[in-house]
């Protein structure tokens, strides 16, 4: 996989991931209005100790109108990514994603915001200096973060008896805020199914660094990854993780090819 092809696929995937992120927030814009759940008049109280100039800037950017403008910029930049190769576009997505995360006191959608930032930084570097070390370093950063995202998550679960027995999977799908479909709850309430699902997940996550061993191993793990993210999107509703994680896959493929060349 060449640097050019990798960059093209990062742009295509990033366009979908960033556009979905912006559209979803525009869809629920009432929650961001002054009287909404995440209204700025409440959240701005976090800045009571901040310098006056910072509060003024935050009031401008994070007010309802300001954040709507940020979302429109993110959407427009995302949609332009596959068609225009201007290096400013991914950096605009980086800036808007970062602003949205800060407004939501850290992140709006957890790790998916972080992975979107990582992919867009990689794309920004690749487009800013095509063929340079900076471009390759950006892709390496995305590839390593992708591997870490699975490996660290897997290693952290391994010592927990609830995960090894499968009980954690049953508990997870029963958490009311995920609103998992009834068929999934019924299936994963069976101990044998839950244990198989838990160990499949642990094996996949913990073995992901093996992707660097050979491109065919990487491809196999990525196919498992697509299935894993599809299942979590369908069962737990984690749709943004599907888009952002798959967007990072070309960066890993590029580096696995380089390492094994």
């Amino acid at each position, binding site marked *: 996989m*060449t*640097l050019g092809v990798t960059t093209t696929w990062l742009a295509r995937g990033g366009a979908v991931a960033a556009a*979905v992120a912006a*559209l*979803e927030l525009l*869809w*629920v814009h009432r*929650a961001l209005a002054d009287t*909404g*759940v*995440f*209204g700025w008049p*409440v*959240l701005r*109280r*976090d800045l009571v100790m901040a310098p006056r100039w910072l509060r003024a800037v935050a009031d401008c950017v994070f007010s309802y109108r300001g954040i709507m403008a940020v979302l429109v910029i993110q959407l427009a930049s995302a949609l332009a990514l596959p068609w225009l190769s201007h290096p400013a576009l991914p950096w605009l997505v980086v800036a808007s*994603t*970062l602003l949205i*995360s*800060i407004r939501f*006191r*850290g*992140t*709006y*959608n*957890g*790790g998916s*915001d*972080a992975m979107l*930032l*990582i992919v867009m930084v990689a794309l920004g570097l690749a487009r800013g200096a095509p*063929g*340079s070390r900076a471009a*390759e*370093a950006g892709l*390496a*950063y995305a590839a*390593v*973060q992708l591997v*870490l995202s*699975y490996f*660290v*998550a897997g290693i952290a*679960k391994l010592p*927990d008896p609830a995960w090894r027995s499968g*009980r954690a999977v049953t*508990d*997870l799908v029963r958490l*009311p*805020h995920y*609103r998992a*479909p009834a068929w999934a709850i019924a299936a994963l309430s069976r101990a044998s199914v839950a244990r198989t699902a838990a160990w499949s997940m642990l094996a996949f996550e913990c073995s992901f660094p093996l992707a660097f061993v050979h491109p065919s191993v990487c491809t196999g793990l990525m196919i498992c990854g697509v299935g894993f993210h*599809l299942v979590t*999107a*369908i069962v737990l*509703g984690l*749709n*943004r993780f*599907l888009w952002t994680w798959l967007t990072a896959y070309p960066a890993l493929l590029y580096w696995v090819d380089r390492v094994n*060349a």
Partner: protein
Amino acid sequence: MTQLHLSDHRGVLIVVLAILVVVTLLARRTVGHPVLSRLRAVLPAWRFFDRAAPSPYLLIRWAAPGAAFGTWSPITGGSRGAACWAFAPQANLFLACQAAIEQLVAELADVDCGEPVTPDAPDTDPAITDRVSYDVVSRIARAYLPVASRGLSGIVYQWKLVVPGAAGHSDSLVSVELAA
């Protein structure tokens, strides 16, 4: 397009990898500083479901003017659409609300809430009620009031935050009466 040799920067890559591993592991610690916590997206901890424990949840109840409060009921985000695997604005908003609820729980871990006089006695400690997270949770409760309460004037509501603990024991925090 110029292809650089891997051997040119293998050492740099190893150093970057080592730094990222260390930073990721450090990022898994709970960040208390308000500025750093807002930059969580920059330093991802990749913390996905590593604690298989029941999550805190929010109950709400409401009353028409002059009437008694109804029973506590959990907030629900409604049904998920068929395309939620691809596009799920309401579901992700509901997850953001859950994250805000968990943030309040995390903040209250350092606050001595005391024992309530009665099970549903509201907590009026300013160390709790003056928090931004408290107001956000109040707005979440208001946003998810049942359809039957909407359009009525003068209704009041309360929320109860329940934090499940070990061996079936759970802690709870009850809000003051709030105007819808």
